């Protein structure tokens, strides 16, 4: 089968050959010195590959191998590929059988230089397979620590929400919660976003879990964790966490931590406002089908208000001056995989709402894939943080360093209100709360900005222009 795969179909054979060499240098050299027995490693066939499955061994133990000859077919997350031998010799021992899975970089077979060394290699494989399997065991938890802090870091704060939810999650489809009913895409997403379906409340038909439930669960987890002022809740801990362990920050969490501490050097103050959203809700309903999101609408409204109040879009860089930003770039806080990131909608006052919505979707997808470019998350001049979707009615945000103001948006909820003409009516109301740097933005600035914003939201015809 070897010659088959050496076609244009597999342009990467050379890359493939390279990887294991670099990956194995240290080890194989030391081995080489003692005896001419080399290890064949599980190569990394793609950038995302962490482990590979042995599809088939094309050679059996004792077979002679020439350099460049295909030895084994490996299945990665993307394709099946042949792995070639980099040395001449004899396939002395197969350490991972067909159908077995091995992490990238681990030894899957031994190669002896001469026939005499086969027996020696075999003996070695017995002892080293013991070692390597032990290594595998050791490595596994390590990997876990690396890849999963997202979940544990999040869980303590979220779990209170979750446990409440689980109580009411008994839906007809699950036989009293014994069985999880989730749609195919929901299952896929859960795997991708590392969400435990057992903790997700289904809102689909017959109470099944659908994609948006998983997304909400994932977002809920991370947002809650990233919530700056949330007090430590002594909450029951979900299964994803090992009690009594200390889990170091990921890079992103480290950055969040630094920024939060740095924010203490800025004198901030807060101004709140209640805005009626009936008109905005109606507009959203009307244009939702065109792909417009609430986030985009809020960003657009904020940007239009900022255009009239440039000082709220300014910041204080050196403690001595106003920096009036030339463009209005709305950063929106997004909970992501164990952290928090603020993708930026640039020129939000100028871009039309549909383009803005598409742009937003693109940014979120990129953020999930961890592909945001620096200019796509650190050029914000004003930040929005919205926890309304979780029913939070008001909260308080910390000002990100380098910007002048951040607005915390709560849920829009029906409320009984007295109108000016003395009647009582129902209106949807939303509370917003702006945190600003008082060195450049004063109370009156924020007040008039909020008044403008309220006007725009209460009469949102300008948003779709």
């Amino acid at each position, binding site marked *: 089968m070897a010659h088959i795969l050496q*076609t244009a179909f597999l342009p990467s054979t050379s890359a493939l050959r390279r990887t294991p060499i670099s990956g194995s240098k240290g080890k194989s050299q030391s081995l080489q010195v003692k005896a001419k027995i080399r290890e064949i490693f599980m190569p990394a066939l793609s950038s995302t590959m962490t482990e590979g499955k042995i599809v088939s061994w094309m050679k059996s133990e004792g077979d002679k191998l020439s350099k460049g000859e295909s030895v084994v077919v490996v299945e990665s997350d*993307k394709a099946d590929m042949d792995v070639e031998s980099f040395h001449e010799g004899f396939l002395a021992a197969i350490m991972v059988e067909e159908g077995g899975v091995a992490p990238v970089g681990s030894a899957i077979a031994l190669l002896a230089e001469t026939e005499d060394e086969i027996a020696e290699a075999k003996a070695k494989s017995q002892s080293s397979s013991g070692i390597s399997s032990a290594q595998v065991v050791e490595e596994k938890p390590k990997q876990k620590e690396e890849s999963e802090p997202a979940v544990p870091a999040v869980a303590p704060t979220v779990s209170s929400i979750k446990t409440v939810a689980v109580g009411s999650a008994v839906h007809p*489809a699950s036989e009293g919660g014994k069985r999880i009913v989730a*749609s*195919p*895409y929901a299952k896929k997403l859960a795997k991708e976003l590392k969400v435990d379906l057992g903790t997700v409340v289904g809102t689909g*038909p017959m109470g099944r879990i659908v994609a948006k439930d998983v997304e909400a669960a994932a977002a809920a987890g991370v947002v809650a964790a990233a919530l700056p002022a949330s007090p430590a809740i002594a909450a029951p801990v979900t299964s994803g966490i090992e009690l009594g362990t200390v889990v170091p920050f990921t890079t992103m969490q480290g950055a969040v931590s630094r920024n939060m501490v740095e924010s203490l050097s800025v004198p901030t103050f807060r101004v709140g406002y209640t805005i009626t959203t009936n008109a905005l809700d109606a507009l959203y309903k009307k244009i939702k089908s*065109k792909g417009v999101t609430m986030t985009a609408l809020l960003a657009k409204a904020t940007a239009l208000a900022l255009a009239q109040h440039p000082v709220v879009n300014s910041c204080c860089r050196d403690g001595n001056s106003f920096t009036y930003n030339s463009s209005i770039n709305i950063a929106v806080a997004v909970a992501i995989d164990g952290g928090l990131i603020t993708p930026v909608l640039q020129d939000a006052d100028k871009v039309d709402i549909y383009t803005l919505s598409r742009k937003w979707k693109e940014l979120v997808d990129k953020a999930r894939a961890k592909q945001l470019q620096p200019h796509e998350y650190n050029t914000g001049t004003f930040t929005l943080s919205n926890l309304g979707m979780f029913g939070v009615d008001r909260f308080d945000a910390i000002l990100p360093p380098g910007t002048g103001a951040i607005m915390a948006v709560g849920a829009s909820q029906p409320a009984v209100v007295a109108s000016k003409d003395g009647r009582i009516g129902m209106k949807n109301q939303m509370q917003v709360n702006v945190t600003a740097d008082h060195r450049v933005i004063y109370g009156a600035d924020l007040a008039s900005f909020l008044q403008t914003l309220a006007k725009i939201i209460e009469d949102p015809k300008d948003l779709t222009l």
Partner: protein
Amino acid sequence: MHSICSQATTLPRSNFAFDSRSPAVPISKPVNLRFCGLRKEAFGFSGLTHSCSSRVRCSSRGHSKKISASAENNGTPPKSFDYDLIIIGAGVGGHGAALHAVEKGLRTAIIEGDVVGGTCVNRGCVPSKALLAVSGKMRELQSEHHMKALGLQVSAAGYDRQGVADHANNLASKIRSNLTNSMKALGVDILTGVGTIVGPQKVKYGKVGFPDNIVTAKDIIIATGSVPFVPKGIEVDGKTVITSDHALKLESVPDWIAIVGSGYIGLEFSDVYTALGSEVTFIEALDQLMPGFDPEIGKLAQRVLINPRKIDYHTGVFATKITPAKDGKPVTIELIDAKTKEPKDTLEVDAALIATGRAPFTNGLGLENINVVTQRGFVPVDERMRVIDANGNLVPHVYCIGDANGKMMLAHAASAQGISVVEQVTGRDHVLNHLSIPAACFTHPEISMVGLTEPQAREKAEKEGFEVSVAKTSFKANTKALAENEGEGLAKLIYRPDNGEILGVHIFGLHAADLIHEASNAIALGTRIQEIKFAVHAHPTLSEVLDELFKSAKVKSAASSHGLVSEPVAV
């Protein structure tokens, strides 16, 4: 299987080509028959594990020759027949046979019990192509990444279900009227009603509640086709538990649909449903999805057509009981392990599509009147489509083509078989080479194949003692595919390196269904690789994928290449 037939219906006159080449197809019959058996199993009942081997009966060559001779000059007193040829069933097979019969000067009648066009045109390949055309366009419009790479900007794509359904329905009516008109224009009598064989060379037909008419004909072709096969335990209500017949009407697009069977039909519908926003769960009895395809192609197809889409699957399980949704309860599907028969899981979904293959439609044909016993519904035939009776003897003047004989359940195979029969009754012996009949699955991208799969070829090679080689090319290297930004795909050639014979070709990629014919024609005409590799392909076209494929094959004997124009080689 019903889902593949577009060429046959739109090119009714294409049989000229067939005519001119047919003398050149001498093939070895035993081989042919055996692989028909394999094919049929793979195509017809992808979701099942029944053994089909008993279905193909072949009589020895010498014996059958004799019978055929005696049948032609048999001692029946020369009496006048109403027709030279009566065809029972006006599907694509019957239609193909009728047109060719008229061309050969036969007085021909066709009996249609339902609607002209049969499964293919009304409930199969034709309307499904309309739905798949929609799904292909939706996929393109929805793929932001793809659009962006081309520099296009499109706002959110949406669809109107009724509009899509109407498109499928309109296409079927149009093709149906084309078919009817083409037969009327040529003077084929279309008789309406259910046809039953009442005795040798005698058929009665009539609608329910009307007196029967009896007509006589020198020869009779049975072409009654097939219906969707529904395994027992499954209750089809036509709304939430459906077959392809219902699904093609697209009366709803469920949020979550389970598709039982991952062969052609299931795969094509998964393509349609996921493009329209449904999530899909496959239920497959065998251990792997897409049985019947070349394993390597199947694996690649799974990576492209299943894994990235909103599809999950259960393999190695039988759906023993499927209950339609009612009283606010969802559709429930009980799964058992295909091997241990132990209950495995219960699924609750919005709808279930039964795509477990097709069963022959041969009830009420009056086969008992000519002493023929069906085998699991299929009419037993020899390699010349002559019907075999309960004692293993040929029944004179009766032939069976298409899904009803189960040799190869494809619309264009039925048509080719019909033409072959007409050739025989007009005095020229003809045996159809089923290994040269291509098949296609119209997913996005498409899958197509002709001849043997790699495991089949290796098995044959071991038995007959020859070597097998495989060559492959990727669509990634094809200019036209890259221009379309559709570089995903693979073409695979299985051949004999000793003499350059093409054993099979499998393609997965853009327009694979249209590309396969170069290979199927080569097999039909006996063209060898060393000859076809000199044929010129326009640049840049997708056909260069095959050009490269042929060129990358390594044929050992230089001696056997003898110029561009070659005699077809007997196999």
